[in-house]
């Protein structure tokens, strides 16, 4: 990590601090920066804020992020992985333990229930009930394997699980490029508590309130039927070219 990354991690530590309620953050960045931004966010959450959390990997097997954290000196003692892609990756890269999500990257609408049942009953398990943060790497890739409607259901159910009675507040971070998957970005933004927009130079350009400022917002309100012309998540007019 360079000085710029360290500064961003520091800025995000201030913004992502654990609150009294569960919060969903959307971090907007260029598609090519998602790997680096995820690393910086985890540094902020793990090293800066000393939180305990879970990374759900969809884009690539968890070993890569684990290796990245290790090489850049970010502690992983308080981190667990749920790997939703390993079974389909044919990857020989060695890595630490992770819980495998049996459905793979498909059927994300069932993932919240899987999280609810992840209670750390065996040492390899991720313990969602104790997690103070969740990062998904990354939400855009879920759209490769699921419909936009499935993702809407996933998000609604996830918000419900994150706000279950008697569980501690959890900070959830989703990173994506608004120009590549504009429709999904709008959906996530409408359900987020806060939206953090990063510049191509990896600085915080803007922080604004998302569509859901607190857990008090009813999931029913969020479950708007999709417009017929919005059933397909399209790339922006520039073709999503980076």
């Amino acid at each position: 990590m360079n000085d710029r990354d360290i500064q961003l991690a520091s800025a995000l530590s201030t913004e992502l601090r654990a609150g009294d309620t569960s919060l969903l953050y959307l971090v907007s960045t260029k598609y090519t920066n998602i790997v680096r931004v995820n690393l910086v966010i985890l540094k902020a959450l793990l090293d800066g804020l000393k939180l305990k959390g879970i990374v759900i990997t969809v884009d690539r097997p968890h070993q890569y992020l684990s290796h990245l954290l290790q090489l850049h000196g970010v502690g992983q003692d308080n981190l667990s992985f749920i790997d939703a892609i390993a079974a389909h990756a044919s990857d020989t890269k060695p890595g630490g333990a992770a819980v495998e999500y049996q459905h793979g990257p498909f059927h994300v609408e069932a993932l919240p229930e899987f999280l609810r049942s992840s209670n750390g009953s065996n040492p390899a398990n991720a313990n969602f009930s104790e997690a103070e943060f969740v990062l998904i790497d990354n939400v855009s890739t879920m759209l490769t394997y699921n419909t936009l409607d499935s993702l809407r259901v996933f998000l609604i159910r996830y918000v419900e699980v994150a706000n279950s009675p008697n569980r501690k507040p959890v900070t959830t971070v989703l990173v994506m490029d608004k120009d590549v998957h504009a429709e999904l970005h709008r959906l996530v933004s409408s359900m987020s508590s806060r939206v953090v927009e990063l510049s191509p130079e990896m600085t915080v350009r803007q922080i604004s309130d998302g569509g859901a400022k607190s857990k008090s917002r009813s999931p029913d309100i969020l479950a708007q039927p999709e417009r017929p012309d919005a059933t397909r998540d399209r790339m922006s007019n520039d073709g999503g070219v980076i």
Partner: protein
Amino acid sequence: MGPIPFPRLNSGIPGLDDMIEGGFPFPSVILVAGSAGSGKTTFAQKYLFSGAEKGEQGLFISTLSEPAQWMLRYTSQFEFARPEFYGKEIVYYDLGVELRKRSSTEILDLIDKKVAEVMPQRIVIDPITVVGTMMKDDYRPFAFDLTTRLKNWQAVTLLTGEVRPGEMYPAEISYAVDGVILLMLSDEGDARRKYIEVLKMRGTNHLTGKQSVDITRKDGVIVLKARF
């Protein structure tokens, strides 16, 4: 719901992006194959410099063909090569020495470590074909593991491949990559002309057939006659 288009990364080669729906799929591994003098290294250097101009991180892994100092001296003769990017936006890594003494697993680990350290969006391995001749282990599993890992690092990697006389492209690596671009030299009367052909580009409705190219000091490799 229809297919979700890939995000794409500009190639930096004038005229090429119009042949491949705007750029290389991101992430992907692309083989750029050709005989000596066809412009492979120039193509790869321009790809890295055009990314650096946009703030994208590049990593150039040299396998053997020549020490980085000599390659950089020749690259400096192109106008697009800005020295201020050397060692910063474009990091050079010499793998040649390691290839002679390491196993395939160790080579993969070395590449992994360097990629994790630099976190590039653009990677070049030049040339990949040397690796097969240097390696004591079976090359095919190595090629498969290498391309899998490179994609999972979330970058577009160009592998340059030397083509032997009578060979169209290095077959032992082509099965593992997402795209194959041929750079060709052709004797036509008294002239030796250069061509480019996109042989394979997964997930892309690419232009087929040979297109004329030139190599200029200003832009490096440019596509002259792409019909869109």
